[in-house]
């Protein structure tokens, strides 16, 4: 995901701000990392450049 997505994304549950932790990047493209809700603490993985912002109970695959 391009880092400017941070301007507009939020936690799908409580719509609060997310904090980005980057594990791997390619310029301003975040390849691996984590988005953490600043309010509820829920964590959303970024894998292969794609943030997974499904509500946790819809996340069927094993998070990275």
């Amino acid at each position, binding site marked *: 995901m*391009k880092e400017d*997505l941070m301007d507009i994304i*939020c936690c799908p*549950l409580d719509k609060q701000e997310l904090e980005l932790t980057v594990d791997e990047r390619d310029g*301003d493209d975040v390849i691996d990392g984590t988005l953490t809700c600043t309010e509820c603490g829920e964590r959303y993985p970024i894998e292969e450049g794609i943030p997974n912002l*499904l509500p946790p109970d819809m996340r*069927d695959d094993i998070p990275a």
Partner: protein
Amino acid sequence: MSAGDAFDEWARQGKDQGMEERHWHTAKHVLSQMPVEEGDTVLDLGSGSGYAGRALRETRGAGRTYGIDAAAEMVHNARSYTDDRHSGFLRGDFEHLPFADDSVDHCFSMEAFYYAEDPHAVLGELLRVLRPGGTFYCAVNRWEENVYSHEWEELVGVPMVLWSEREYRAAFREAGFHVAGQDRIPDEETEIPPETDFPTEDWETREAMVERYREYGTLLTVGVAP
């Protein structure tokens, strides 16, 4: 089976590209009507192969486009079809949009809305994320008046919304949208074989196939956030 699982399977089989090709007959007309201006942020709900975002970047100067899709394989494929990182993709559920209030200029959705378990929730979420004056271009070819679409639920194996044209307008208004218009967009490009080829595998009569593609086509409902 959830819609996500079904579509993961489709994406693995490369059916996302087949859908793109078929849906493009109609989608290009829908996209060209959208009041997208240079620099706008546009969302594609249930983005599949991601063609809509790519097209709006290339032809309309959209600033950023985001495709959201529940199926992991769809999103992975979509990302792999473009190097343009202003055309991004994310995995998410359109009933729980991960976007801030008023953060999106316009939203497009093709052949996806009727998979919603709670379609009213989708409309509510859209109204929240669209800025005032933002539009929702909702295109579906499964709806009450199109009798040929009634059997799909069985074929796809997941429950699907089946509203009438009037019900679409009413639900949009109930969610708080202004309804700007509604139209049936014909598919003029799907090839229809000559009379003598009928019945085909899929169609009893040529008349029915003509009615399905050239008359019913795809239902477009346009909502505007107040």
